[in-house]
């Protein structure tokens, strides 16, 4: 019997012990030869790398009841999306960029009660703003508010990535138009963000895009090496017309470190993803360029197991960014206490009056 260890800590949402096969089709895009490709140097043209991440938080769940006695759900939440700006050649200090929290009052579209944001949003003139912007979500599920906050965060992340990244020339004729700013974004790239040098990185592998005949290569990758670039369609269910998915993607795998022998063979392997043009079956030069430098770059940013339980995939700048984002949202305890005292002050007398009457 052989025992392997899941690389992720047990409190991570999903483990990485088994992979679910991808239903759709996956094509070779770069080459027909399925073999490891050695890392290349990071070209000096690339001046900036931005690591973008976001963080949501629920601060309070609310139950709203209208005069007619109808009940609906709502919640106070906060999210933050930010970036770390660094030079891949180490010529300057890394900096935090646009790390600012936003607060959300998410309420159900089925709520009959009129949501008056200003009555619900606690403010404190002494210690700064704590003002919740109302956002409606559809349905009446318990998790509705939470997923609304999550959705808003993902949108903010996508917007930030799109705005910060260089345009990616999908036309190969002009070598000078290659990007000088690359955005690394946590998770797969988002729908509708094509045309920009945004590289999505997937830390935890759940879906097997390779199939039994190809996946063996991942176990033999050396640190920094990558697989050839593949192409697939997001949401492809395979088979019939109409279910072939919405957008084309390029994807490849990179290994960040030599895994300890007792770990899952895919520990330290990361899947990378970029948008692919709809109408061509070759890999544009800009994408190939990024694929070539991705091994070196990610090995440089990979963290150490004693510093981060999700090492090496949780990159060093991301860990720092997560800490900064947590700080930007403020102490959860303090926020909850202020929400409580605000609601008591604003709405408490209604209950009292009712009791007296």
């Amino acid at each position, binding site marked *: 019997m052989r025992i392997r260890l899941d690389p992720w800590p047990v409190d991570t949402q999903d483990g990485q012990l088994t992979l679910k096969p991808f239903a759709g089709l996956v094509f070779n895009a770069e080459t027909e030869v399925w073999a490891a490709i050695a890392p290349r140097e990071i070209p000096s043209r690339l001046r900036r790398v931005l690591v973008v991440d976001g963080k949501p938080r629920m601060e309070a769940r609310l139950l709203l009841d209208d005069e007619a006695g109808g009940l609906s759900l709502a919640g106070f939440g906060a999210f933050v999306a930010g970036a*770390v*700006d*660094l*030079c891949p050649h*180490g*010529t*300057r*200090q*890394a*900096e*935090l960029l646009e790390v600012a929290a936003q607060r959300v009052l998410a309420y159900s579209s089925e709520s009959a009660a009129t949501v008056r944001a200003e009555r619900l949003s606690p403010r404190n003139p002494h210690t700064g703003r704590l003002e919740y912007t109302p956002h409606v979500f559809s349905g009446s599920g318990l998790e509705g508010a939470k997923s609304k906050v999550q959705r808003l965060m993902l949108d903010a992340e996508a917007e930030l990535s799109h705005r910060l990244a260089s345009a990616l020339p999908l036309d190969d004729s002009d070598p000078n138009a290659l990007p000088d700013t690359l955005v690394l974004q946590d998770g797969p790239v988002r729908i509708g963000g094509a045309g920009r040098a945004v590289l999505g990185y997937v830390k935890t592998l759940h879906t097997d895009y390779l199939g039994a005949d190809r996946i063996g290569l991942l176990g033999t990758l050396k640190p920094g090496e990558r697989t050839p670039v593949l192409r697939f369609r997001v949401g492809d269910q395979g088979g019939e017309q109409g279910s072939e998915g919405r957008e084309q993607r390029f994807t490849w795998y990179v290994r960040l470190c030599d895994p300890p022998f007792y770990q899952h063979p895919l520990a330290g392997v990361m899947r990378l993803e970029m948008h692919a043009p709809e109408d061509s079956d070759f890999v544009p030069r800009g994408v190939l360029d990024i694929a070539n430098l991705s091994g070196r770059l990610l090995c*440089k*940013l990979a963290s150490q197991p*004693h*510093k981060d339980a999700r090492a090496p995939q949780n990159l*060093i*700048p991301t860990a*720092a*960014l997560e*800490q*900064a984002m947590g700080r930007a949202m403020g102490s959860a305890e303090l926020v909850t206490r202020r929400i409580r005292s605000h609601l008591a002050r604003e709405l408490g007398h209604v209950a009292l009056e009712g009791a007296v009457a």
Partner: protein
Amino acid sequence: MTGISGARIGMVLGTEDVTPTVFWFAVSAGASVQLDDLVVVETLKPDGRPVRFYGLVDNVRKRHEGVTFESDVEDVVAGILPASVSYAARVLVTRVDPENFIPPQPGDTVRHARGDDLKMALSADKMGQASFPGGLLADGQPLPLNFRFVNGESGGHINISGISGVATKTSYALFLLHSIFRSGVMDRVAQESGGRMAGSSGGRAIIFNVKGEDLLFLDKPNSKVVKKEAEASANKGFAGDRYALLGLPMTPFRDTQFLAPPRAGAAGSAIVPHTDQRSEGVTPFVFTLREFCANRLLQYVFSDAGSSLNLGFVIGNIEEKLFRLAGTQTGGGTGLKVDDWQVDLSETPPEDLEFGDLGGVNLRTFEQLISYIEFKLLEDRDGEGDPKWVLKQAPGTLRAFTRRLRGVQKHLTPLIRGDLSEAEANRYRPNLLSGAQLSVVDIHNLSGPAQMFVVGVLLRQVFDHKEKYGRQDTVFVVLDELNKYAPRDDGSPIKDILLEIAERGRSLGIILIGAQQTASEVERRIVSNAAIRVVGRLDLAEAERPEYRFLPQSFRARAGILQPGTMLVSQPDVPNPVLVNYPFPAWATRGDEVDDLAGRNVVEVGDDWLR
């Protein structure tokens, strides 16, 4: 209320305790704060009235903020991990104005103290006309010292501690003297007193030179000072040389005299000063045998009189007898005439006795005096001694007494002479209080007992003189190696006189500028009476002794790394010590530093060396 003039350099931190006496502040980006910077913070009370905190920076630190692991520094420098450097400084508050001891508010603005604020921070506003420069602060501003705490008005005495050679205690003492005499503070204070004091014209200083011939060239310009000062002001980025910043002239001491003991020689030999490097301009000094008796100087011969009660009794008695003997002398001369010495009964009669009329003997040397005392105590009346001199003391005690006298005979013979004419005696009598403004008494060539004797006798003379004439003319006495003259554990006649100076001298206008390597080994009452205390480089174990409790902990640690030319100065007006540096001496401190070109040429200097 004064205006805040300095630039904003930071904000009071809220993550560390803020107290009315100590607080931390975060240094703003682009600002540079170093130890000893003087800062001011203004905070508003709830009623809107401001309170200002003046203090000095006693600790500065930097660290990476927002990173968890120490090895993260590599990632930060490699540009991968975003982290900011937190730069914070700790302030020891020296003054709160008005005296509302509330803490400052986190977030209050911290500024450099400049101009009026600096004066407030260092309490210079309280000093008024009595302030004189005690050195330069780190940023080139002079540190004001309060002369009223030096001259005895409010306090007196200065004590300097530090390791020999590195702490440059004597240099700082000389710098203070230079500053006192030449900054005009004595005249200003005298003027304010309405004519009850004489100012610098009446001020005197006496320096005992105990080490080498370092202090015998104080009247000569230093050939290196211009170069050294140019280097120093370039290094520190000062606008001018440090003398100019302090408002002091870059000149050697003026109105000086140099006294040195005579060389040992046969009785009747010529009196020449016992110095090696300098011979011109040095006056030899001697005490006459008759003065020795008349002024009761015998006690200063014994440094261990306290070791036995009986011995002290004998000394007192013989001193009294000699005093009476001196009182019966008739006619001029410096020797003693005795007519009751039956020389033929002595065990070892001196060879060159001079017999006077009526069979009397003229005592002309210290050795003869000892022989005479031996005769009176041990040989007269068939070995019983003269009962009036013996006073029923056991022969053992008497022998102990004479044995000690014989022990110091060699050291004191050149200093105590009875063979001089009255004119010679007048010429060579040490004249500390009516001669020059600055007297250097060179005792480094003397043996231990002779040094003790000279210091004790001269200090006693100064003290007696001041007791008679009062305090209007301040006399500064500079004495190094206090631990030798006033040790904590043993008694000596010099310790008694030093204690008297320390405790009563300030009201008589005698100010002791004392120095020692280790204050812990000096009589506590002498150190504790000093109003101004100065510390140079200290041994770290020494710095932890209770004598240095006036230094905050961070300063005690720093005392171990002070460089020559920097001192920590503590004065009563400012609760915390302040680090100062002081300029290179403008006077020569060694023979080879003398500026040859200032008045004399090389040949003349060479002549001096060959003579």
